[in-house]
């Protein structure tokens, strides 16, 4: 019986050690690549006013001169979590970016339609360019859009994507700003003003 208790104790100690080491999973070393830094950059700025659900809006103009207005919703109610939705008012356009890190590392989801709840999922966080079914996601340290320089930009490329899950050629999201630019139909660029 003593042996049974001893084994039980050892298993308990091992479990405690394992659980208390979990914080390491969220360390940059474990997450790797740029994922962790980008997740922090995107979610920290949104918390500036101390709210966990944020609603904002911004205006855009495309290269044809057509103006539009986007309404944004940001959810940072959980740790290591960022959920961003942008919906246009003139165009029937909807784009989301969700990022989450967990015990297994993390995931990034991109949705191009309102009813595509899971979105196109990218889970290989160790590389700086991620792929799924021909769709790709890259992390740019900086990018110039409409004459302005933005830092920490996530670029989604749907030009080689299989299936019919996204009408966009490219989506650009910047930390501290959100959606910067949408390229679609080979010739149209909708740009944040």
């Amino acid at each position, binding site marked *: 019986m003593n042996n049974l208790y001893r084994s039980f104790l050892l298993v308990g100690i091992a479990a405690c050690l394992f659980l208390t080491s979990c914080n390491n999973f969220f360390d940059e070393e474990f997450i790797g690549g740029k994922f962790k830094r980008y997740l922090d950059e995107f979610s920290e700025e949104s918390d500036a006013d101390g709210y966990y659900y944020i609603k904002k809006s911004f205006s855009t103009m495309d290269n*044809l*001169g*057509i*103006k*539009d207005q986007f309404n944004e919703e940001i959810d940072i109610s959980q740790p290591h979590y960022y959920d961003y939705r942008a919906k246009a*008012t*003139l*165009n*029937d*356009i909807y784009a989301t970016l969700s990022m989450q890190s967990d015990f297994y590392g993390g995931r990034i989801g991109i949705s191009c339609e309102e009813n595509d709840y899971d979105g196109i999922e990218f889970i290989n966080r160790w590389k700086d360019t991620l792929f799924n079914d021909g769709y790709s996601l890259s992390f740019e340290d900086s990018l110039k859009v409409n004459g302005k320089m933005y830092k920490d930009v996530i670029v989604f490329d749907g030009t080689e994507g299989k299936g019919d899950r996204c*009408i966009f050629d490219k989506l650009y999201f910047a930390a501290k700003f959100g959606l910067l630019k949408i390229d*679609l*139909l080979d010739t*149209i660029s909708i740009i944040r003003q």
Partner: protein
Amino acid sequence: MKFFWLSFISAVFILIFFLTACDGLIVDGECSDVEPTLHQTLGSVQKESGHFSKGDLYHYKHSYGFNFDLKVTKDTLFWQDIIDICHFGDEQIRSVKLESTYPIVSVNMTFHDDYLYIKYKDSQFFSYYDSIGFELHHYYIIDLLDSVTIGNVKYIDVYKFNAHGTGASIYYSEKNGILKIYENDSTYFEIIGEDNE
């Protein structure tokens, strides 16, 4: 034992209530006083409404200052099972879709035997038919205007459909289709019609 009888009597009442809840009493799983089998064919009113035809192009001017086209990308008739505890059968439905390549705009219209459903962005419009056309007594969702002038074209017998909750409205002509869509008080687009005066 008392609890058993109470439960039993309650269950019987619930069963009776359920069986009489639809149009008539259900006997052996069928409604006794309604036609058990329906085969609802669309009338010519619904089949010809709007005079849409696949490939047709409608020109519109947006209040933001640009022009664009809505193309009829779908105008199909199909049969759909009727899902109703007291009715069995199927109904014919007409589905019409107008789309613009850019700006990305689409209008979906579904004509049923007894109502028309229109979906435009987040707005939904319902208009009900009687034997001769749209029912007009639902004044908060439909209005019939003698005439509406858009540009220099006068359209007669124009219906104004109002969406619930969004403030959007659609001006619709059985003859000319979608004439104007208001997204809100200040944002709209309207048809660029040929002068018919």
